[in-house]
């Protein structure tokens, strides 16, 4: 474990990503301390630029943008992380079952996976959301999870296919272990790096999709999230009147989450696939190579 931790700590990008995500989560958890009071309360005049009293300015409705930003992190992050988990769980389960069983089960599941994969997600999300009317966070979660599992399922299936005839799996089968035990206890632990990548990617996707849906007005406008903040700012033409703080705060929040998660994912990718790594050892090797090439050319 400590070697894994060391490997992680040596990756500066991962550490930065981890600090960003932890910091934002702490901010969300400590919202009552950091921004006491109701974020939906009118506290000042309309569209005031940032001052000492309202560090992020106010919205058109005279609400404190800082307070909304802090409180809005809660549902935005919670929905993003929960949906990401749901997508990963669904994708992993379907991919594993499809890959392990093969035959007709695989044919049906693989066909479904590929079919759902090629249907454009956002138009489908908009269709589902518009039939459901204004939807709460739970419905947004369900809609996103049900339409975005195929990426993970495809990756997991490929891995499961390559694992299912390894000795330890065959042995487990011979001992007479039930299928669910073989799949979820024998095979699953071998997929941990893949699941990690899938999870971070799914959280990123969930946050993108959630923001898009809420920005388009499918979220509950009374619920303060970063997405509905963007929606409200857009509706009060904040950009055109020059109230950049109104749009800037939630946009920055979402962009920073994206940055943190992307840095984490980049590192996971490199750990799982050493070929992609571009650490110091590789640079040294490349430099040596270049030197040797130069010497060869000089000798010629």
């Amino acid at each position, binding site marked *: 474990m400590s070697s894994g931790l060391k490997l992680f700590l040596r990756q500066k990008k991962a550490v930065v990503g981890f600090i960003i995500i932890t910091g934002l989560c702490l901010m969300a958890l400590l919202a009552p301390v950091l921004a006491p009071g109701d974020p939906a309360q009118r506290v000042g005049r309309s569209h005031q630029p940032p001052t000492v009293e309202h560090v992020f300015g106010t919205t058109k409705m005279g609400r404190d943008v800082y307070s909304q930003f802090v409180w809005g992190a809660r549902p935005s992050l919670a929905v993003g992380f929960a949906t990401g988990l749901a997508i990963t769980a669904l994708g992993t389960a379907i991919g594993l079952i499809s890959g392990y069983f093969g035959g007709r089960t695989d044919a049906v599941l693989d066909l479904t996976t590929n079919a759902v994969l090629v249907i454009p997600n*956002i*138009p489908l999300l908009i269709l589902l959301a518009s039939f459901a009317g204004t939807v709460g966070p739970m419905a947004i979660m369900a809609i996103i999870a049900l339409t975005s599992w195929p990426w993970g399922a495809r990756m997991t299936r490929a891995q499961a296919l390559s694992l299912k005839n390894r000795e330890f799996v065959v042995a487990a089968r011979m001992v007479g272990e039930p299928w669910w035990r073989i799949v979820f206890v024998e095979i699953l632990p071998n997929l941990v790096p893949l699941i990690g990548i899938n999870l971070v990617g799914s959280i990123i996707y969930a946050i993108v999709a959630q923001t898009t849906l809420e920005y388009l007005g499918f979220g509950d406008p009374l619920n303060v999230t970063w997405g509905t903040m963007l929606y409200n700012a857009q509706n009060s033409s904040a*950009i055109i009147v020059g109230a950049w703080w109104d749009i800037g705060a939630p946009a920055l929040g979402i962009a920073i989450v994206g940055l943190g998660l992307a840095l984490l994912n980049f590192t996971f990718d490199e750990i799982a696939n050493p070929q992609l790594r571009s650490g110091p050892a590789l640079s040294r090797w490349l430099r040596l190579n270049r030197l040797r090439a130069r010497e060869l050319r000089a000798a010629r």
Partner: protein
Amino acid sequence: MRIPLRRLGVYLAAFLFAILVNFTLPRLMPGSPVDSMIAQLGPRATPAAIEAIKARFGAVEQPIWQQFLDYLKGLATFDLGVSVKYYPQTVTEVLARSAGWTAFLVVTAVVFSLCIGVSLGAVAAWRRGGRFDAFVSPFSVVMIAVPPVIIALATLFTFGVTLRWFPVGYAYDPSLDPGINFTFFGSVFWHAIMPVLTLSPYMIGEFQTTMRSSMISVLGEDYVTMGRAKGLSDTAVMFSYAARNAMLPVMTNLALMLGAVFGGSIVTEIVFNYPGLGLTLFTASVARDYPVIQGQLLLMTMATLGANLLVDILYGVVDPRVQEGRT
């Protein structure tokens, strides 16, 4: 030029799935959407219009399979129903008006990002571990993670509102008459710059990442070593030996990304008030114009499937091994 039946089966299943969603969703909804649509029509609700909406959304006394057959028959003749917001225009007319602009936007952005992303990825793989790679590759991953809404709003604010470099709405100057002349094309080009720049970062990031990893594995192949051994220049080996083959995964990725690109174009068009499918979808969803929203899903599914099919065909052209393996 053979495409395996399996792929065709997948596309057929995807299309059927989209149709089924369209068909069943309004029938499953509590509180039929039909009434709200008829209310939406207001004084324009002629008996014919009401009849058409009822038939399409299942408020008729017919067995469900009969309704489904009628629905399929309608689709086969490109009858997607009538728009509620723009009645008496049909959905096909409403979509046809804006599809061209979206196609223009998406194709321009894809070509632009493909050139940049693939070159960045190839160079990053060639010099992996170097300073270029250390900066460009993480940057690409970050670009994928930032929602298009954010990029669109930032672009609009910086270049549209603050610097006033580019126009902040419409596909061309509304005072111009559309025609085949330099001024009109110039205006179209000028208005497309910000939307295209907004759509690109995501795609450049995706292309760069895919190209880099596929290029890295290709660089280990024997034929690349062979090219080097022949004494070819770095550029020749990089582009005519390695990059050509490393492009294949990029193309698969392109076809699969198209759905996300459409998602991005919807948001971009709304932010920049660009008269494409996204803006139509947005006005339709605000007005609860269900027939248009449904037609949109079918159209975008068809576009994505078409692109996938095209990639399957191109794959065989670029890499003859694939075709041999299939026959």
